[in-house]
């Protein structure tokens, strides 16, 4: 099995085989990333394709320092943000104010209580702006200042959207949790 370093070297020379290996190795992970930013799987796959094109053509720019996976994720996230900006004007905006009344609870959650699919579904139901900020902050681990720059919004907007997103998610998870426990008890 080839190491990442070897694959990077070969990809830089546009070696078709190496490119295929790179795709096979990381496409699932990156699709997982893309999916969190896209409205559906088809859009996520589009973003994935664009990301890979960028990766293949710019692989020389990967300096070698820092994690390669981190670099791949960064490319995918950036591509997703570009796509988000493109779609922004066509997308239906849900009035954010609807969610303000939600109280931010302090409930903590058990890691394995919810499946990834359920979490994803909750995430996907968020308004696009919330989802972007929540994804970038909570999952990707960017700082609010970085997020503000990436999305072209104010740092405070990023912060407030994150806290609102959190409140909405918490609310949804709690409801889902109740439903789930009812079902599991009846099982």
């Amino acid at each position, binding site marked *: 099995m080839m190491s990442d370093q070897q694959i990077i070297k070969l990809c830089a020379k546009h070696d078709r085989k190496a490119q295929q290996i790179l*795709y096979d190795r990381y496409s699932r992970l990156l699709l997982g990333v893309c999916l*969190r930013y896209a409205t559906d799987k088809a859009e996520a796959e589009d973003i*994935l394709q664009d990301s*890979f094109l960028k990766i293949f053509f710019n692989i020389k720019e990967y300096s070698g320092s820092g994690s390669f996976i981190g670099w791949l994720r960064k490319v995918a996230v950036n591509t997703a943000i570009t796509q988000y900006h493109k779609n922004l004007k066509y997308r239906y905006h849900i009035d954010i104010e609807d969610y303000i009344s939600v109280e931010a609870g302090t409930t*903590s959650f058990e890691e394995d*209580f919810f499946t990834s699919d359920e*979490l994803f579904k909750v995430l996907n139901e968020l308004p696009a702006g919330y989802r972007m900020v*929540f994804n970038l902050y909570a999952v990707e681990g960017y700082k609010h200042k970085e997020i503000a720059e990436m999305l072209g919004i104010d740092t405070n907007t990023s912060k407030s959207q994150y806290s609102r997103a959190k409140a909405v998610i918490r609310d949804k998870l709690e409801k889902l949790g109740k439903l789930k426990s009812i079902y599991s008890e009846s099982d």
Partner: protein
Amino acid sequence: MKKEKENIGLRDLFSRKLGKAEVIPDASVKSDLMRRLARKEFLRFNASRFNIYYLGGIIISGITGLLLLSSYENTHHLNNSPIKEETFKTDSLNYFKIPVQQPDRKAQVISDNTLSIKNSNVSISHLSDKEGIKPTKIPYTNRDSVLLPTSINKSIGKKGLFNDTAATNQKLKSKYIPDELLIDPNASVGCAPLKVRFHNRSTSYDSCRWTFGDGGYSDKRDPEWIFDLAGEYKVVLNVYYDDGKQSSSVATVIVHPRPQAHFEVSPAKAVVPNDEIRFLNYSTNAVQFRWKFGDGVASESFEPVHIYSKYAKYNVSLVAISDWGCSDSLTVINAFSDSKYYIEFPNAIIPNSQGPSGGYYSSKSDEGAQVFHPSFTGVSDYQLKIFSKLGIVIFETNDINIGWDGYNKGQLCDPGVYIWKVRGKFRNGEPFIKMGDVTILKN
């Protein structure tokens, strides 16, 4: 069992569960991607991947090149015209130079005769090379030709000079679509202060920066800029793309100085309607002038002279027009408000010994000073009385146009000193009362 699990925060929950979540993409995604990759790479030349496609491409482009070259030589032999290239050169400037039409300009062209139009046509190539003005001039004549007397149109049509220019113009215009240009100013030649709206034609970019050549700049997509001072400005648009690339485009904006209309009235306290009034022209940067004296009379002289026929308030206006069609106007409202009204009487007359004249006079008929009458201006109310030495009124009139002829009841008065008294009002409402004596001299 659930309770043994570790309780974690929301952020950790998502980053742990979703951060590394893997989703299997559709198989078609991979094949699609590889196709797109192949297409993109094919378009990028890469020596290490030199293959049959590149070879084919090179052969095809070589053959097309040869074919083009030979066809070019053919046409070159057929119509060996250096004019073509010249028109092309000037025309490439054309989409920068959309003319700012001064409404006055039109009239100027019309007032010109056939000769001058020919002139402008002939001088076109000349002008354009130096100052880039030509393209603005063609549309002028083009558009105004409708308004020209038909004879002029015909004479141009026969020679074909005019039509030719227009035709080549049209052809070249369609050939060189200015799409590559990022800048589209709505006007690039005009008079100071010139307001220009710029359009950024690039479709997708991250940010842009306009520098206007006068120290100003803007980051707007389609900024509006006012050039206050005359001059030639190089407007640069830099466009930055998200991938760090940038491109720039340049347009030239020519701002012509605006003339300044200025005039004075001579004499300074001219009296309407009597005085002959000279308008002193102090306008700068102007070559053409349009005067309106306010009484319906107009003039295009540099310094016109005008006599008003009656008393009124007149607004005098001057429009000064520069070489470039830039104009400025000055209107002086109630230009003769400074008028000095007066009424003056002579101190002696020599009555006509042949008999009474009735006192009618005019400045011409009374050269012999036979009638006692005032020199005046702006008088509205008037009453004149003449007294004898004994204080008896021997003449009285309310009509300023009738003077005293030196007779009393049909008899010539004796030579000597008589007293006159006048009272009345000037047109501005100011009253006057004057007294004096007049000596009747023996004829």
